């Protein structure tokens, strides 16, 4: 077992159960801690970011608040298998090998299946690619002792579909921080990836079960060296600030739908020099008829105000400022691009001055709502 969190809520109460996997060290790939090097590495290398990202996400999950389904368990598998808790304590967890992941997946599925109102969260960060289906790679991928390369490959879609049938939890969220490219060398291989769980059932029950991918089909996911990945960073931003659907009795709620919408926005808005634009691909199944609340925010929700001018030529002359009723104030000097500023959701006065070329513009009492609210100020000569 690799439970890093388990407050032992009675089984009859709905809970949120998470399985978090971060695979950075691939012993049989380039740069891995070679127990047995593989001849076929398909150009893949050891990664730094996944364990960091997984640990960051697992630690944030402890803060997840949901009265309807509080956090029940957080199971973590890593490669290398060293977990660091928020207090800095270090503990060993199970290595994210195929066998361990399969067993952990079954345990997680069983736990989550004890109550239909449970919420199951699956997070994976590591290597992945795509060949008709999304394939995730556990730590022992390309083990030269394993003749069938597909044994140590995870068939995500089949695992997802089988778990929808096997696990009674009506809400299941899958967060996949992995590439979805198809290396040409791998195409030459004839293999079938392996599902983490099997099912003898045929019926596909109703579920809210989105899959959020860190990359579009055929493209790469990214991380800066030694840093939490961009997808996981966006995920944490959305869970903690930007992902709210709206307020319910004064509390900001993040739902299965609003998380997807916020992630799509957040990822598309991220820009890193030298890298292609990011995107979050949301593969959705939402057949319960309405979204499920995943998390309620303790404080205010945040939103991005996207401040622009019409005509857009005036942007390069515009000095912007945004101010709330308490006097909190942000400003930006002239720049030929839209100003995206993250602020607590609420009411703002937004100003623009154009150095005399256009009349100063004011948008008073502009409401800013998550995840993004555009505001265009008219520049009148």
């Amino acid at each position: 077992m690799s439970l890093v969190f388990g407050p032992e809520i009675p089984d009859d109460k709905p809970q949120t159960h998470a399985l978090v996997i971060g695979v950075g060290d691939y012993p049989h790939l380039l740069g891995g801690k070679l127990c047995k090097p593989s001849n076929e590495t398909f150009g893949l290398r050891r990664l730094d970011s996944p364990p960091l990202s997984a640990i960051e996400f697992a630690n944030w999950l402890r803060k997840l608040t949901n009265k309807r389904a509080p956090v029940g368990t957080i199971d973590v598998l890593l490669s290398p298998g060293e977990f660091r808790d928020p207090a800095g304590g270090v503990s060993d967890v199970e290595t994210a090998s195929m066998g361990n992941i399969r067993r952990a997946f079954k345990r997680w599925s069983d736990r989550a299946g004890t109550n239909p109102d449970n919420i199951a969260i699956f997070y994976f960060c590591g290597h992945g690619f795509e060949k008709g289906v999304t394939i995730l790679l556990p730590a022992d991928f390309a083990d030269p002792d394993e003749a069938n390369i597909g044994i140590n490959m995870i068939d995500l879609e089949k695992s997802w579909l089988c778990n929808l049938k096997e696990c009674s939890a009506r809400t299941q969220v899958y967060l996949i921080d992995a590439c979805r490219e198809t290396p040409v060398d791998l195409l030459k291989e004839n293999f079938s990836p392996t599902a983490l769980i099997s099912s003898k059932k045929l019926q596909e029950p109703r579920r809210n079960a989105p899959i959020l991918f860190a990359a579009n089909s055929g493209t790469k996911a990214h991380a800066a060296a030694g840093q939490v990945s961009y997808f996981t960073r966006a995920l944490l931003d959305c869970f903690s600030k930007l992902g709210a659907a709206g307020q319910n009795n004064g509390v900001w709620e993040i739902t299965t739908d609003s998380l997807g919408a916020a992630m799509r926005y957040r990822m598309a808005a991220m820009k890193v020099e030298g890298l292609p634009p990011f995107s979050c691909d949301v593969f959705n199944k939402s057949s319960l008829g309405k979204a499920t609340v995943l998390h309620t925010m303790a404080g205010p929700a945040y939103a991005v105000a996207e401040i622009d001018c019409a005509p857009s030529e005036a942007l390069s002359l515009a000095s912007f400022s945004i101010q709330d009723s308490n006097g909190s104030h942000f400003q930006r000097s002239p720049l030929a691009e839209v100003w995206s500023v993250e602020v607590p959701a609420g009411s703002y006065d937004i100003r623009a001055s154009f150095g005399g070329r256009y009349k100063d513009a004011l948008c008073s009492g502009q409401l800013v709502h998550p995840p993004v609210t555009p505001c265009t100020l008219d520049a009148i000569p």
Partner: protein
Amino acid sequence: MSQIQTRFAYGAGDSENALIPLEVFNAKSETVYRDSVRMGSAVLKRDFDPGTYLVRATLPSGEVLSKTVEVKADRSVEVLLRPRRQSPRENLGWAYYLQSSVTRPLELMVDRQLPQVRFWQHNTSGWTEMILRPDSKRLGNSTYVNFDASLGDTQPGVRLLVELQSHGDWRRWELGQFWVQVEAEGFSRMMAVPPAPTIGILVVDAEPHPKDSATFRIVAASGDPTTQALLGYLSSGDFESARNVGTDWYKHVQETLKSKIDDPGMAAIAGYLLLEVGDAGQLDDWTRTLARGTPWLPDGPIIRAAQLLAGPDPEPKDVADWMLEAVRRGLPMFTQGLRLLYDGLGNLKDYFAANPEPEWADRAKSVAEQVEFLRPYCASAIWQSPFTCFSATHPEDPQLAGTSVRPVPSIRSRAVGSAPAKLWEDVNGSLNALSEALNTFNWGECNRICDGLIAYVGASKDPFPEKPARQILNMLRRKRRFNRMRTVAEALLRHGQRSPQIRRQLGQALIELKEYPGAEEVLTGILNDSSLTSYAGEAAEATGLLGRVYKQRYCEAEKPSKEDLLRAIKLYFDVYHTNPEGYLWHGINTVALLARARKDHVAVAGYPSLEDIAQSIDSFLNRMEVLWYWDRATAVENAVALHNWQGAYDHLLYYAADSTVDAFECGSLLRQLVQVWQLSMQENPGRFLLPTLQGALLAREGGRIILNQDEVRQVSGRSEEATRDFDKRFGTERYQPLRWYKTALARCRAGVRVKSAKGEVLGSGCLVRASDFFPQRSAEEILLLTSDSVWQPGSRLDRVELEAAGEKYSVTGEVWSVTEVGVTLTALGSLPGVEICPVGPPAAPFDRSKLQRLCVIDSAGDSVQLQECAWVDASGDVLRYRAPFDRPAPGTPVFDPNYWSLIGITRRSSEATSEATSIEAITRATASAKP
């Protein structure tokens, strides 16, 4: 109290009618209003208290539009929703607001190419490239295409706009699935575009991706704006918006779907919406209507199967049948469908593997095969596209998305060079070789392979295995090689392979060869075989065939014996009543023969009335989830028995549209309707059913129709009349083999029989328009085009007789012999009202990697013979083809079967192949000739 009215800032054409989700938040960030509204303008359906509100809408493109407004007491306020990027044209609103199509230009690309665009259709005969008529920019009969590359001058990132506009009834041209192929910079992509009266296709730069990704994207608009918007939300994963819009929209369309499905694309989106984000429980029986009622749309069966899967206790057989039906129709038009199909088949495959039941074995095998078939399409799929899109240079050859194009491997590369008997040491290879020989009507090769088999089984110690033996006989039967079927079956039996199926196949071959005593002996032998207890189904089949022996005897005899009729009825009914639902074909034969007995005043006692049996069969058919083509054939006859002409025609359309129905089966149903039911062209329902079935037969591989000149006139007239009457009765919106056949008959009327003055037949030819060959001549003037082996200038032309459509013509005009291409053109003057053979649109160029087909109309004999042929080669000015039956006479015109445009004139025919001069070569030669 006050109201809020929204207005879209820019003109967006039809797209303004799209429903989009709109929310209003108060100053406390509480949602006070949520509804779907028309994008163009809307008055929100509630009164607002004075205060500050944020009005926010999300476009399907992903763009969020918002505006804060101050609402004052008793005042209405207008909110202008302004997207950041404005469409350069109103009618491109779909591309800028309803899809995330236009992003940013591809800065890295130095040499952006103007994309090459091709159009494809997938229907009963597989993939066909649709050729754009260069003179009229017309695709098919009524769809006009406009290419506009000028947008890119003002809109960075936009490369090409293609607009398709269908005049008249747009559903007429949707004879299957429509696909567009775009090629540029070494990448090629195929995308499905569901038919609609207007379709927009935009080719834009792709987002900069790693260097091995395609440099462009295709986006398309098809269908009404709200369905486009919903598709945009669904494909981008914005299910909240999809749900907000879809819930209201579905309430509106639900009743329409229950009554009549006019717009299958819209119905499919409604299905996907409810399956993915709504309440699948709301999907009621209209999905069955969609699945059954739109035979060209693979998405219908997928939705039906997914609905069954989502319900309690799905029946694996039904789910599998719908999924397999979907694959049989082709690739889904919508990406949602491709995902559901692939996952659904995978689900079934695992289910069958985990729950092995003998009764599911065949389905399990088919399901596993189809998973493998779809795998490369899924690997090459562009999942972000709302419509199914994949990377491929040819639709049958999907390639990994992102990789550049590579040559299409030849599917005719299998060489058969082994000695005949030795060949069969590799059974699979020989089966493939036999299949190829049969598909290309290479009877010489077919005979060689069969002779090899006979030698092989004679030399073997063990009997030839049953499974490939059955396959071989089936293949021969499907191509109507009954003599070969007989000799092979006899050899197999002689050398120990005596399974009931092989014996039954011999019986069937003998029936087809009209050797009834022999057939009776073989079939009776099966029934008397005491070891047959484990083959209960075989006994029923053999009994049915024995019934057919007596049926044929009765129908074909000059003086029919009522004993034969009664015996046939008894044989069929005895099987039927043991398990009526399981032996429908025995039941329908009982019905047909009882009807015949009634007509011929033959007293029959001891059976239920034909109406009672027909009603039972009708209820069995109605209970079936999926009607396979053999059920459709039964349903056609049954509807005839119940005097339900519309039902008969409906079922026949499905039957004709089913690509798995072969020429043998079409011929069998035609024979049954003519011989047993005695339907005729003169009256209903024969005047609809017979020409439609003849058309379906001709469209099949190896199809042949023989008509005398009177019949050409009659059938042509009847067909025309039937088409008009059909339109009046049933509307014009459905798949119409009748219209295709009508065009074929028009070409028959332009066929010419060339005889010498002594009455000796010289050959065949056809009437053409002079201006198609000599542009300066009048369009009214008609020429005879034939091969110069039929005649050449210098002959005593005034003594040659020409007959076209039963009319005689004399030759008084000029004659040109175009010696370099071996044809003769003869001026016949102005002949108002005659049919001619058009020379356009040109056929798709010959491609060795595909099995291309063509049709010939030979008018040289006493009868006109239409044959569907295999196009086997083309080199220079010559094209070579193989006809399935008789060798076409010199001068026989060769047609592209898609449009019945003239593509060649037969020069000579040998045992193996026929050779024709291409029309392209002739027009090239005549262009420089002096007329």
